[in-house]
């Protein structure tokens, strides 16, 4: 399981009603159901991943996140989770507002485009960043709305979204030491605990 999911797992309260946007193969919901007895639903668009969720007994609903969350009631979930998916939707700002409408709290993680490796690739090589974490080339990437930590926090300020907690992750030793000094430069992944 990805390391950002470990952080997310720790933030979910036992017995919570959880909505996981872009739930993939349902691993997170499966584990939360087993360890924290949550009632969870995942939204997913990929047919194979949907089948894998069903095979695990995870509730999965086929839905394109770009069609919005309009059919879910206000504050009908204790937590709405979106892990590594914000950058792949058409209207991240609208979806973020929607998450905060249907969820009492939101947990959101995304790759930080402000990481020094991304900056180096653009500034020195003059090319769009490609890494293990973002293995796509510019023309086939599903990730169409990259942002940096500073960008994201700017949006939160603009929309009066409360940042309850922030966690930043780095994979190499330099990042692990420096991410807390300058997250926008040294964090590969950011995880936010939000409310509104």
């Amino acid at each position: 399981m990805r390391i950002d999911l470990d952080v997310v797992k720790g933030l979910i309260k036992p017995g919570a009603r959880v909505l996981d946007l872009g739930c993939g193969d349902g691993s997170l919901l499966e584990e939360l159901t087993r360890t924290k007895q949550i009632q969870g639903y995942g939204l997913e668009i990929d047919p194979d991943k949907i089948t894998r969720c069903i095979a695990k007994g995870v509730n999965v609903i086929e839905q394109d996140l770009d069609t919005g969350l309009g059919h879910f009631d206000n504050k009908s979930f204790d937590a709405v989770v979106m892990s590594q998916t914000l950058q792949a939707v058409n209207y991240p700002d609208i979806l973020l507002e929607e998450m905060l409408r249907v969820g009492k709290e939101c947990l959101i993680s995304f790759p930080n485009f402000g990481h020094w490796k991304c900056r180096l690739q653009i500034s020195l090589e003059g090319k769009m960043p490609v890494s293990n974490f973002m293995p796509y080339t510019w023309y086939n990437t599903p990730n169409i709305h990259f942002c940096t930590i500073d960008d994201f926090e700017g949006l939160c300020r603009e929309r009066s979204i409360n940042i309850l907690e922030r966690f930043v992750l780095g994979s190499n030793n330099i990042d692990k030491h420096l991410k807390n000094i300058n997250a926008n430069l040294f964090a590969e992944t950011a995880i936010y605990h939000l409310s509104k």
Partner: protein
Amino acid sequence: MQQADTSGSVGIVSPKTLYSAKPVTLANGRVLPEVTLVYETYGTLNEHHSNAVLICHALSGNHHAAGYHHPDDTKPGWWDNYIGPGKPIDTNRFFVVCMNNIGGCDGSTGPTSINPETGKPYGPDFPMVRVRDWVSTQHLLMEALEIPSWAAVIGGSLGGMQAMRWCVDFPDKIRNCVVIASATKLTAQNIAFNEIARSAITSDPDFHDGRYLEHGTSPRNGLAIARMIGHVTYLSGTAMGMKFGRDLRSGTFEVGTDKQVEFQVESYLRYQGESFSGRFDANTYILMTKALDYFDLARDFNDDASKALAATNSHFLIVSFTSDWRFSPDRSKEIVDALVRANKSVSYAEVEADNGHDAFLISIERYQTLFAAYMNRITI
């Protein structure tokens, strides 16, 4: 351990009959003094009777869901693509039951049955039945077979409505509910198509106000037209385009000839209509379409489907097909939303398919895979 059968077919099957002399009171207050229920079963009921699955048939279906009646049958039962050894509804694991609904014309008590009070066929005097009457008579069969709870109740279209009704009426007797290409209620457009079909039947001079059996006739033309209308709505424009296009069966467009052309699609529809009207009863068609129109899961619950589903205890799988415009994905999403609102366990898949509403009967790889994945999870 016994070798699992992977032939895919349940093979040769025979219908069975349950006769009940106990009067059945219907939702509309009318009483059937006795009922005959014709059904088929596939697979073996296990020791704890915990592996039984009920298949609910749709408008023109019957109890013959899988296998063959005779070795020389050209076609298997209507859902043979999904029922059998190694198939999604795996008869190596499950004991599968499918019953001809009352009001039908394939053996269970219906308009063509003899009314014991008059000694004549019921015809149009057969009471209007509702989906809940089908469920309560399926429950009679369940008790006769000594099945304490269904591992799953499964249905497509009108069959899906029965599966949902099971959850509401017998919440502790159904552990899984699979609803395919269905809806909590029909739309006005859908009712309109049914009314056109019924009008085609009732305006046939051979209909005789439904007493055609007493007149030794049958409104075959009207029934054929009803089926043609239905058939068009069960397909998608794309499917018809791919299957027939503008291909001609006979005639020519050549200038200078006055020979009529016949498109392939015309001859196909005519064939469908004729073969259907040869095997189906007109009063049953009227009754079944009325039951469809009447069905509204939320009516008794302030029009709130989530309240209707609040007391259910099953896990749900809801499936729709992209090109189905008779029971569109939006209708299935309404079921899903109601279940989520009621905090029920539900999964939903919208399968890409060109086949329209008929997709639920057709073998489609993704549909097969996800259906099998769901069924394999069911504990028996």
